[in-house]
């Protein structure tokens, strides 16, 4: 396999063919923040926190490093005023949903993110998809999935599968970056109150 040589933050970096910028950075000890990335899972490209600047043939653009493949002779910058500004905004947007999550505390300090910038809507879920993808890709059970779209998008266990598979697994719980107990709650809710029964009860 041929080796790709490129420049990241002024250092010469070597990467194997097919490696992403993020993988190459980690191998070289350069830290890039992520929220939806996991070594056992396919890159998802959803949180956009790992955004970096790539200069190639004279033009510069922003790309997400968890998906962008390493290319020879490119120049990558993992920090810049613009990158920091975007990361700060992404963190602030996410902290509206999970202001106290541990995962955000150090990052917020690093990027000067204000947890109170946006009105709080604590739903805890930040749609990183780690639970959904882990269940699908590693466990191959698809017991949890996304439902609906846009700002109404939620994670939800599928009761028929979850009732059989989840009690003895629960491997997705510790993956949750904001609140492990949240996954447990969603699971219990799905099993104890199958779709619609909660609404029916509250209306009745």
């Amino acid at each position: 396999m041929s080796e790709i040589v490129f420049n990241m933050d002024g250092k010469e970096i070597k990467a194997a063919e097919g490696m992403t910028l993020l993988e190459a950075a980690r191998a070289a000890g350069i830290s890039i923040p992520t929220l939806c990335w996991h070594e056992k899972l396919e890159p998802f490209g959803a949180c956009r926190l790992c955004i970096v600047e790539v200069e190639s043939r004279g033009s510069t653009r922003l790309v997400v490093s968890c998906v962008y493949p390493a290319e020879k002779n490119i120049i990558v910058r993992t920090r810049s005023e613009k990158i920091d500004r975007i990361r700060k905004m992404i963190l602030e947007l996410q902290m509206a949903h999970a202001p106290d999550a541990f995962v955000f505390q150090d990052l917020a300090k690093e990027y000067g993110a204000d947890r109170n910038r946006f009105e709080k809507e604590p739903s805890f879920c930040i749609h990183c998809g780690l639970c959904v993808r882990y269940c699908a890709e590693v466990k191959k059970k698809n017991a949890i999935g996304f439902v609906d779209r846009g700002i109404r998008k939620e994670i939800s266990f599928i009761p028929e599968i979850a009732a059989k598979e989840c009690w003895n697994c629960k491997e997705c719980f510790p993956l949750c970056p904001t609140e492990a107990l949240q996954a447990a709650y969603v699971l219990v809710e799905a099993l104890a109150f199958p779709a619609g029964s909660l609404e029916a009860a509250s209306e009745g």
Partner: protein
Amino acid sequence: MPRINTPAELEELRKDIISKRDPKKPCITLCSGSACHASGSKEVAAALEEEIKKQGLGSTVDIRKTGCHGFCERGPIIVIRPDEICYFQIKPEDVPEIISQTIKEKKVVERLLYTDPETKEKIIRESEIPFYKNQGRIVFGANISVDPKSIDDYLALGGYSALSKALTQMTAEGVLQEVKKANLRGRGGGGFPAGTKWEGSRNAPGDIKYVIVNADEGDPGAYMDRSLLEGNPHAVLEGLTIGAYAVGSHEGYIYVRQEYPLAVENVNMAIKKAEEHGLLGKNILGSGFDFVVKVHRGAGAFVCGESTALMTALEGRAGEPRPKYIRSNIVGLWGRPSVLNNVETWANVPLIINNGADWFTRYGTDGSKGTKIFSLVGKITNTGLVEVPMGTPLRDIIFNIGGGIPGGKKFKAVQTGGPSGGCLPEHLLDLPVGFDELTRAGSMMGSGGMIVMDEDTCMVDVARYFLEFLTDESCGKCVPCREGMRQMLKILTNITKGKGKEGDIGLLEQLSETAIEAALCALGKSSPNPFLSTLKYFRDEYEAHVREKRCPALSCKELIAFYIDPAKCNACTTCAKKCPSEAIMGGKNLIHIIDQAKCTKCGTCFEVCPPKFRAVTKISGVPVPPPVPEEARTIVRPQKTGSPGKE
């Protein structure tokens, strides 16, 4: 129908079809596109058939139910050929007169003709009506003479001759070079050169390649692709087949949205007819080239118009864009090279092959060749579909073709490019329409939506409306789009409600930067456009909303009040009678007063106040003047000698 095996057999069949048609025989073409369908063309068709039978004219006149003619404002439309007599807004009860007068007596029914609003002259021929005369309909023009359910109609107009030429007289490489030379750019939104896209797929490794028609048109108010696919499906199929030949693909898909049932029906029938004729399937026209087409119905998600989301949906998964930095013409549907172009782009291909790239590039500007179909809607006199050469100034489209703004109102802005496009103000009306021209002005071509707005439109509310649409249609995968739009919509909604804060505009600009730079797909990246373009040209309106709590267009409900000018009120009592919330106090000879606490701002009083008084006004940004004291409300009318006077 026996299968056609060679180009010569195709030409024989064409000659045969044309020879059986008498060009002098009257033919009533009735627009049966979706808009006319909604305004009653089906009933008119039934009446036509019945009346022709009743008057014993069965074999002496033809009826052709065509696709959309474009002048939807005036539908249902009838054009009687060969004289091209054009009647508008036909009702079933007009039909007996049309048959007895125009068909039997060769007389024109004056009252059904188009009246030029300026000269007040009646215009008989379709092609002389300004709406049509000022267009250049090279792609859409065939719609008016083709029954989409008849392959014979398409063949009679020279249909499939481009395919025949491509397959038997040109190499695949030759076809590709012709399309490249024509600089045909994608009509779906991106404006990417189709030839370059095709070349990428052609040169990509692999035996299996796909060509796809994007008929997931979802922009509010846009229906160009719908009307093309419904009205002339064979043109799209022919273009797609030629593209497949150039790329080396043997399988094509038409991704058409669920909400277009007539397009689905017509394109399915067209595929069946083309297969029966040997114009699709194995060994097309004896060339050895095989090609099949399948129709896939979309499940109703705007984001599936985005190329990678469309392909994901086509694979049977939730329609979310792919995060990969690989072009889908290299790694697309099921990981294979896939060329995706929209309906209008494909429909241009047969024209380029038949007439050559040099002919095609005669139309348009340096960067944008050919024509573009726009759906002209909003505050415009002639709502409909218009096709003009690229480079035509916006002013010509809106005023010469569109007939300007109705009701004597002033033009304010035109929104082009769909929800992610932008609003262009009056001083840019002379801008020639083209991909690069519109982008430079802060808007975009998009797929050709054109929404005209008048002085009563609030630009902040327009931005809020489009953001609401996009928020609803976002797939919700990436943070800058899902969360960024959630916040942008909240802020914009607050501003239109008078709850805007100092700093809101700056925050919106920062959220816009995050979306543009960091969102995953084109929907997210372009989502701030409605805000950015209105801010660019109408910043004063934003500032008035935020700082003065004033809506300059007098449109945002929370920021306006209805007020009756005591000097103008004539106590006609109309407003008080019509007010649904009984908020108007008044009575005979009393100046009417609106109780602001009860008023729901429905605007009824404003609409019903007789134009000769115009006493009801909208005010914004200033307090409502206190009501006239009760004792001063009686209207003292001047006594006129010799007239009984008003009561």
